[in-house]
């Protein structure tokens, strides 16, 4: 056995060396010289989408990006190719995803989620003629359109609404994971509450921490956290926690007079939440679809956007949904707050 082990070790070692030595063979992009083989109908615009974990169908962030791409596809014709991230992804996987899309002739390519920041820079440098879009982060390469949102401004308005609607002077915020992005939501919300009602108490809680991203996809954790806050006396709860928010809304629905504030999409109109919609005060919508659509349109028009496009409250990138009509009675105060942010008299903190 020992001899066998030695022999095979030697074989493997030489094979491995030979493999590295011959790595100068053709690359996969040379092999796939016919980009049309996997593309769509060939006509129109070929949109490549690289989603964050969850992908199309997450009812929230990725879906919003998908809506923008769908709209563009319908208008300009063409095809969409979608790839989705895994939790075990490394830089190499993200680069591969973007490279595959670029190799196959997709242009523009939209990278959905901040984890693509570095890989977009690298791949964009390799494909200078392809336009890349990056959501929620800022890249440096010239052919990249960085699409970011001022979540703190929309959340500020959510805070104003919560402060005006609370009867117990006590509101809550539930964040999925304590990432810098979610902290922007929290910071804006707390400031909005305090500016409107200095006496109101705000509970802030994150479901999970650090690299444990389960807080974005655990309705049970959301429900538990919301129940805790309600027991503690809060009566308006804003949740920015992906699908965990569904659990929080369910918990709020169980308490009379309590309100939930949704996030990303207009959650009043989401069929899965129809049973609880009478408890959804409003939603802080983040119009990722608008950013994606604008970017694809600019490429279609031959003038690709580049640099950092900031979708602010002023530009309608973020805002409060009015479905249900529950915030109609405080519209004037909300409009006043919005005006102050837009004209710069109120600066909303991001952390």
């Amino acid at each position, binding site marked *: 056995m020992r001899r066998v082990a030695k022999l095979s070790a030697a074989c*493997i070692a030489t094979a491995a060396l030979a493999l590295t030595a011959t*790595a100068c063979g053709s*690359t996969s992009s040379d*092999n796939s010289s016919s980009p049309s083989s996997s593309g769509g109908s060939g006509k129109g615009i070929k949109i490549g989408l690289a989603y964050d974990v969850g992908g199309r169908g997450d009812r929230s962030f990725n879906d919003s990006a998908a809506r923008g791409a769908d709209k563009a596809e319908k208008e300009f014709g063409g095809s969409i190719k979608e790839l989705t991230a895994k939790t075990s992804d490394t830089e190499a996987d993200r680069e591969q995803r973007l490279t595959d899309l670029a190799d196959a002739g997709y242009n523009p390519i939209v990278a959905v989620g901040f984890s693509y920041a570095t890989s977009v820079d690298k791949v964009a440098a390799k494909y200078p003629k392809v336009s890349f879009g990056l959501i929620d*982060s800022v890249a440096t390469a010239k052919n990249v359109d960085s699409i970011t949102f001022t979540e703190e401004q929309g959340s500020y308005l959510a805070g104003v609404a919560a402060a005006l609607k609370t009867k117990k002077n006590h509101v809550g915020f539930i964040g999925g994971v304590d*990432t810098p992005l979610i902290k922007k939501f929290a910071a804006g919300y707390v400031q909005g509450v305090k500016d409107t009602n200095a006496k109101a108490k705000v509970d802030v809680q994150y479901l999970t921490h*650090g*690299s444990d991203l389960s807080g974005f996809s655990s309705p049970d954790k959301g429900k538990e956290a919301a129940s805790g806050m309600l027991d503690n006396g809060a009566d308006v709860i804003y949740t920015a926690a992906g699908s965990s928010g569904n659990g929080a809304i369910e918990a709020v629905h169980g308490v009379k007079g309590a309100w939930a504030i949704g996030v990303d999409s207009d959650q009043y109109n989401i069929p899965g939440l129809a049973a609880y919609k009478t408890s959804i005060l409003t939603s802080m919508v983040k119009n990722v679809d608008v950013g994606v659509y604008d970017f694809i349109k600019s490429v279609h028009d031959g003038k690709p956007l580049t640099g950092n496009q900031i979708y602010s409250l002023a530009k309608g990138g973020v805002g409060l949904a009015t479905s249900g009509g529950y915030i109609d009675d405080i519209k004037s105060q909300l409009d006043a707050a919005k005006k102050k942010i837009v004209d710069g008299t109120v600066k909303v903190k991001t952390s």
Partner: protein
Amino acid sequence: MKKLTQRIDKERLLLGIAAPLLAIVAAIVVTTLVILATGKNPGAAFSDMLTYGTASDSQVYILNKATTYYLAGVAVAIGFRMNLFNIGVDGQYRIAAFFAAVLGGALTTPGWLSIILIILCAMATGAVWAGIAGVLKVTRGVSEVISTIMLNAIATAIIAYLLQPGKLAELQSGGTVVSTKPLAKDAYFFQIDTGAAGELWGFIFIAVAVGVAYWFVLGRTRFGFDLRTVGQSESAAAASGVSVKKMIATSMLISGAIAGLIGMPTLLNDSHQFSNDFPTGIGFTGIAIALLGRNNPIGIALGALLWGFLERTTNHLEFQGYDKEILGVIQGVIVLCVVIAYEVVRRYGLKRQQQRVGAELAAQAAAPTQKQEVA
């Protein structure tokens, strides 16, 4: 007599190869069925995997991935040989990579010295983290499975607490990524430029060295013998004068130190900083790879390469319109098949051995009686 050992060796070798082969064939069959069930053509999928997976840039990707996975496999295997189930490799490598990155960002020493210090820091952190479980097991009899799972959660929490702007990390432009201070340029590990195919991480040589050391220490030293003995039977080992407690603590420390290396290829060759998107879950991949490789240094290497190949090619399968979940299915099926196939082959081997021994005994018993009759 010489002929006989050769024959047995051949048979053992055959059985040894039969198990993984059986597993891979079974995995291919199951995967084919799954792809058929989704209404796609499995033949095209396999041929795409072959052509795409053997392209030069895929080779570089696979070798880079395998470097990380190999270290993970070895870290787990050290525990396995000792009959210790170190589930905590995951937490150990993450916390080790984090503190190594913090140290690396703060260092102003010459590059070569920084690299050595970073690697040593990672190994020490990993060893300490695993050592906690080792000490608990030795002094209080706490199952290492339970304590390492808990330590994984604690590691996550500690990193989450310290990886904050103003503590040990900084916020990057765009306001969405927090990371430790990046390493100085001269503290990057060397890599081999293969042109269009990308860069091969130099850390692969460290991984190979770890493999050789693992093989040597376990197979060629007194310590390795003691370790394997304890793994096979604690009471027998104790009876022959091995301090079981000391062996448990030491092997946990070594397993943790190797676990500390897992994050190093990524840190020193790729990301150069620890950010909130540092890859997670590699410790669990290591368990699968150690199982696949039967704790054998070469087996683990093959398992790691296979894993890298599967990830590379199934990423591309998704691009070709196959469902992205196929990767999870293939990986799960392979691990299951390997475990089952080894058991089947082991039982078959045992049966063969019994038959052979039985036949030999019968022959021996028959021989003298014949002689007596003659006499």
